[in-house]
């Protein structure tokens, strides 16, 4: 599965940035911006010491994204600090998810990364308590539409997002990593149990669970726009976590335990084929039985390749089909058909309301 895509080439081999033509730069930067990866390229160029050899305009554009990612990291750290303050005095186990965890752990995939919100996870029976604490500490509900509020509370895996009016970073307080209506909704207490305490008192998932969360988010939960970013993060994680042999031993059994084997198959398959990620042979052999049948696999490949590169295949019907196909698929996995039909109908008609 070879992909003719300049951004992927550059992500794999940053040194080729030195030789890009102006047209190639434009394609590469456009895709990088749309995939949220411009900051990453900038970091890579600096990391291998070629930044000063790049066209002045490229350096200039990169410096904008450097400020962006530095500021995002700073804001997330500060928000973590504010959450800590709000929770002062409680010994509740609070798990940082996604960007917050990556930053707190200092993981390699955070370079040049922008996080727009902070995700935390807390036991389901403590969710009202947490909401109360945050509202008292000054956070406000971001979603005030009644339908949305109700939908979040009844069917989703998180509180409606809360935002502090002084800081504009929203915090998503989860009680699970997937909607409770989802066919794949795991027993999250298992993930909370094995989470690891950090110096600042927050918890993060074990390495296996961190990557499985990223994977399930991308391949089941329809993170369509940032597909490529998610995939390269997984690539980084395989590399970083994979140095520890224990990680490989635990990965597949853990995916079986949580019910994420199909998603793990896709992640390994696409990371290896697109980025050439080093995956041990025994892992590839062991995950293979969990792959899809030929037809599903082909459809999935078509859709994933269609969205992975914002402009690959231009704005054609293939991209449209991929975007919408994955959107519908993610919703299909998220909730039962009747609920899904109702939800999409309401969302559809809301498009026509001027004030939304």
């Amino acid at each position, binding site marked *: 599965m070879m992909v003719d895509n300049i951004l992927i080439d550059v992500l794999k081999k940053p040194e080729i940035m030195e030789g890009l033509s102006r047209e190639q730069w434009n394609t590469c930067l456009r895709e990088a911006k749309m995939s949220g990866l411009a900051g990453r390229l900038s970091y890579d160029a600096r990391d291998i010491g070629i930044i000063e050899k790049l066209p002045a305009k490229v*350096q200039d554009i990169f410096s904008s994204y450097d400020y962006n990612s530095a500021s995002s990291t700073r804001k997330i750290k500060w928000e973590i600090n504010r959450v800590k303050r709000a929770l002062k005095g409680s010994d509740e186990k609070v798990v940082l998810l996604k960007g917050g965890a990556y930053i707190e752990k200092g993981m390699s995939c955070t370079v040049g990364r922008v996080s727009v919100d902070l995700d935390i996870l807390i036991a389901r029976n403590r969710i009202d308590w947490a909401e109360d604490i945050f509202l008292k500490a000054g956070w406000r509900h971001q979603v005030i539409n009644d339908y949305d509020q109700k939908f979040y509370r009844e069917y989703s895996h998180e509180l409606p997002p809360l935002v502090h009016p002084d800081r504009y970073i929203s915090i998503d307080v989860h009680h699970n990593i997937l909607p409770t209506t989802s066919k794949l909704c795991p027993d999250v207490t298992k993930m909370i149990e094995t989470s690891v305490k950090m110096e600042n008192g927050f918890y993060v998932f074990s390495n296996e669970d961190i990557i499985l969360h990223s994977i399930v988010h991308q391949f089941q939960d329809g993170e369509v726009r940032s597909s490529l970013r998610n995939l390269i993060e997984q690539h980084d994680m395989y590399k970083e976590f994979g140095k520890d042999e224990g990680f490989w031993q635990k990965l597949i059994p853990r995916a079986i335990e949580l019910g994420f084997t199909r998603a793990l198959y896709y992640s390994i398959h696409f990371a290896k084929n697109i980025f050439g990620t080093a995956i041990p042979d025994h892992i590839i052999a062991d995950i293979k039985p969990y792959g899809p049948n030929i037809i599903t696999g082909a459809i999935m490949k078509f859709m994933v390749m269609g969205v992975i590169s914002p402009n690959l295949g231009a704005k054609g019907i293939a991209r449209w089909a991929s975007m919408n196909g994955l959107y519908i698929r993610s919703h299909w996995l998220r909730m039962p058909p009747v609920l899904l039909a109702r939800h999409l109908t309401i969302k559809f008609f809301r498009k026509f309301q001027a004030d939304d």
Partner: protein
Amino acid sequence: MPVASRFHNENKLVKLNDSELDKRLSGDGIAMEVGPFSVNVLIKFKNVREDFLKIYRDFPFYDEPIVLDHSISVFGRNLFRQYLRPQAFVETEMNNDTIPLPAKIGMVSLEMGFNWQVAMGCKQYLMFHAGVVARDGIGLIMPAMSGSGKSTLAAGLSFRGWQLHSDEFGLLDLDAGELIPYPRAVSLKNQSIPVMKEWVSREHDNYEDYFTPAYPGTPKGTICYLRPPDQSIEEMHKRTKPNFVILPIFDPNSEPKIRPITKTMAFFRLVASSANYGDIGERAFSSIAKIIEESFVCEIIYPSLDTAVELVEAFIAEHSDPKKAGQDDG
């Protein structure tokens, strides 16, 4: 850091003949220079192209391939929206979530797209929500909220001999400490449209030529765009250090007056006006501190454009030697 292009508007858009211009703008787009940015502009609607050229016809374009800061396209999202009930959608390639507008007012979509690109994709310059003008080594920043009349004031000054940097995006080069001109369509809303038409007509018989048609029914009421003065477009790369900060307050029932404010207050007002202060962080703080240290500062309260321009010029004349800045902290 950015390299100012060396050519001086030899490649103006208007030098291309009409059919060529139309073909390129509606085909792959034209890469042009807008202040410090290189932008590829593609417009699928004829009326929007006409309005666009009214404003940008004297802007330089690139004939050779160039690394672009931004690409912007205005188009109908499908055949129905392109031809039958035309609706202008703007794609900034920066994940914008803009509502399409009727194609008749597609120029508003285009300008909103430009705004989005600079607001989201330009963190390398310190940005002020402010009108900025310059003249003879004087760099004047006028930070203000929407509705304070800063666009009208900046445009008003620019048609009285000042160089228009921008009517709403003041950009500062953090390394050089210089204001970077970013002249674009001046966005006039509602009552300010007749005011500016009258103002420009005092200087130019062909004043209508500077304005696009008025676009009624936008989320901000009626909008009309004004082309910056020719000289400001010519001098798009002439930078100036800031040395005056004037906070404009429009009040139709007031007596015109200059109100002194402390430098501390001016500092906080400039911080509050900066859209990316928090993103840039420490360098933004020190840059604003330096600007305030080197600037004369005041508030002006004015009932009309005439009085505003008089107040600005009076305050500047009073402190005409910028080197004396910093001596009269309130």
